């Protein structure tokens, strides 16, 4: 009896209201609107990809892929010499990217090495050594440090740093890869320091307690337990720092000397890929081979940093999965 009564209420019950069409459409429309926005970051990456390639691949219309590596030209005496030069404005235009890549590496690698030593050290200090009150004050300071515009760093290195190192080390060129690398370090140290601190901080305290409980000193704990445990995080930060060093423009443009040399001597002037684009884009005529070749350099740059970022992200994701305590 009672059961029939219960189920017969369903016809008049207020619990049975179906989702109104208008509401359903409205909420779906709102969700769609946000979803479109949500995919914009992805869309922009794709667009950057597409438009870089669109202009950059046009370079291959007239310039062979080999030409981007070297040019075989006839020397005056009848032999053929292989030139690795970037000299698009010469009568016989040369588009070798080799000097530019070397320039990039000659500035980025020393910068990353210096920044790793100093940055990881700073990260260790913040995470393990500094007392919490000081740390609360210092972490924002690193952020401030990281917020300095690169043009300001370039300016300071150009005006103060170059002369300082010139007097100290007497390099062959006043503006050289070394000065640029020092300048780059100012940009990368905060990145590495900050990410290292995050990585170290996320190692659970239980590990430290276990180490101390077994009679280890602070330094032993840091070097044998914490740093190894945070290895992937620290590596990711170094990779990201390296990627940043490769992609930096203003500091190398202002301080590295802008001569496309092939050399391993960091005290000579060099030209990086980024500086080349920055310096020459303003002076090329649209649609010329030179113009397209600059976009081509952009493709190379973008590809390198894209993969570096991807690797770093994979490492960080793996680390997150492992660290879910």
């Amino acid at each position, binding site marked *: 009896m009672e059961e029939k009564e219960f189920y017969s209420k369903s016809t008049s019950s207020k619990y049975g209201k179906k989702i109104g069409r208008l*509401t359903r459409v*409205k*909420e779906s429309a*709102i969700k769609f*609107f*946000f*979803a479109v*926005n*949500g995919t*914009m*970051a*992805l869309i*922009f*990456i794709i*667009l*950057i990809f597409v*438009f*870089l390639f*669109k202009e950059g691949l046009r370079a291959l219309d007239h310039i062979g892929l080999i030409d981007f590596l070297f040019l075989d030209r006839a020397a005056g005496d009848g032999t053929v010499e292989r030139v690795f030069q970037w000299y698009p404005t010469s009568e016989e235009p040369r588009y070798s990217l080799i000097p530019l890549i070397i320039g990039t590496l000659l500035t980025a690698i020393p910068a990353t090495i210096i920044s790793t*030593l*100093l940055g990881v*050290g*700073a990260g260790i*200090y913040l995470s393990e*050594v500094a007392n919490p009150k000081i740390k609360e004050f210092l972490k*924002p300071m690193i952020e*401030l440090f990281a*917020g*300095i*515009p*690169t*043009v*300001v760093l370039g*300016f*300071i290195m*150009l005006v103060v740093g170059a002369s300082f190192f010139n007097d100290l080390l007497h390099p062959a060129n006043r503006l050289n890869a070394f000065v640029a690398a020092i300048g780059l370090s100012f940009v990368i*140290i905060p990145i590495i320091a900050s990410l290292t601190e995050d990585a170290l901080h996320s190692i659970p305290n239980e590990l430290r307690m276990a180490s101390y409980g077994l009679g280890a*000193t*602070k*330094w*032993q704990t840091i070097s044998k337990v914490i740093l190894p445990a945070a290895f992937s995080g620290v590596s990711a930060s170094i990779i*990201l720092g390296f990627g*940043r060093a490769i*992609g930096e423009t*203003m500091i190398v*443009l*202002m301080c590295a000397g802008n001569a496309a040399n092939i050399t391993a001597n960091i005290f000579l002037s060099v030209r990086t890929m*980024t500086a080349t*684009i*920055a310096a020459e*884009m*303003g002076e090329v005529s649209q649609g010329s081979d030179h113009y397209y070749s*600059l*976009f081509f350099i952009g493709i190379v*740059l*973008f590809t390198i*940093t*894209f993969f570096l*970022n991807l690797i770093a*992200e994979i490492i960080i994701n793996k680390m997150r999965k492992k660290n879910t305590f």
Partner: protein
Amino acid sequence: MELKRRKKDYMGNISLGLIRATFIFLVVILFLLLGKIFVEGIGVISPEFLLDSPKNNMTEGGIGPAIFGTIAVTFLMILFAVPLGVCSAIYLNEYATDSFFTRIIRTSINNLAGVPSIVFGLFGLGFFILFIGKGLDDVLQTGLLFGQPALLWASATLAVLVLPIVIVSTLEALNSVPKSHREASYGLGATKWQTIRSVVLPQARPGILTGTILAISRGAGETAPILFLGAAFFLPNLPIADFCIGDYCIPMINPTEQFMYLAYHIFIMATQSANPTKTMPLQYGATLVLIVLTFLLNITAIIFRYRFRKILGKL
């Protein structure tokens, strides 16, 4: 049981000492450099310097138009970047499920943050100026108005550059709203949008503001992207035009014009100055202004974020 006397951990102490030393070293260097800029530049700072135009090949005068240009460009940039970034973050945090597609989006955001700034410049040129701008010109029959370097495209390009900053800050802000508040709202029979609008967003406002300030600071400091998107070293006029309806005119920013930009100005002065000795004090002055501007913005954002994190911590 024999208790040995505690061995001094020489290795450890030296290492820790070195680490402290590196940190102090870095801090000292930073202060020296900033101090140098301050000392050399402060002499030049005056109301005239901040408002006047450059004169005599930048050996005299001021950086007024460069400051104006920076404000105009970052203003437009924020108009583009903040709504887009906030809505992106809302989607990721409130609507999206943990799927392959969502992970791709998050990867894209991280990747966008890592794109070299000069590549953004190329993107701005190839996409905004040559594709969108030229397209607009073709459709609206305006000749060569949009398809050339202009304030509008510089702002748009910088907006894409700072987008990850806005998204990440907003995500943090949205995440900090406790899940239980959303549950309470749903439990009372609110729809998702009602919950976002009335419960989540109001609480996330400080975080969004922080993200906006950080984005402004980043945009104002970037030089490479705008090198060939419309920045100029010297323009006789500000990029303003009168917007007239009949006889009634208001001066507004003209987004199709070129502009002066403080960061760009410093770059040109430092590298292409005709008379370095005469312009040097002005270079320091301009640099000081840019640094102070950046620092003020960043400090504001940091304090803001600190305070709103504290408030949430207390709940």
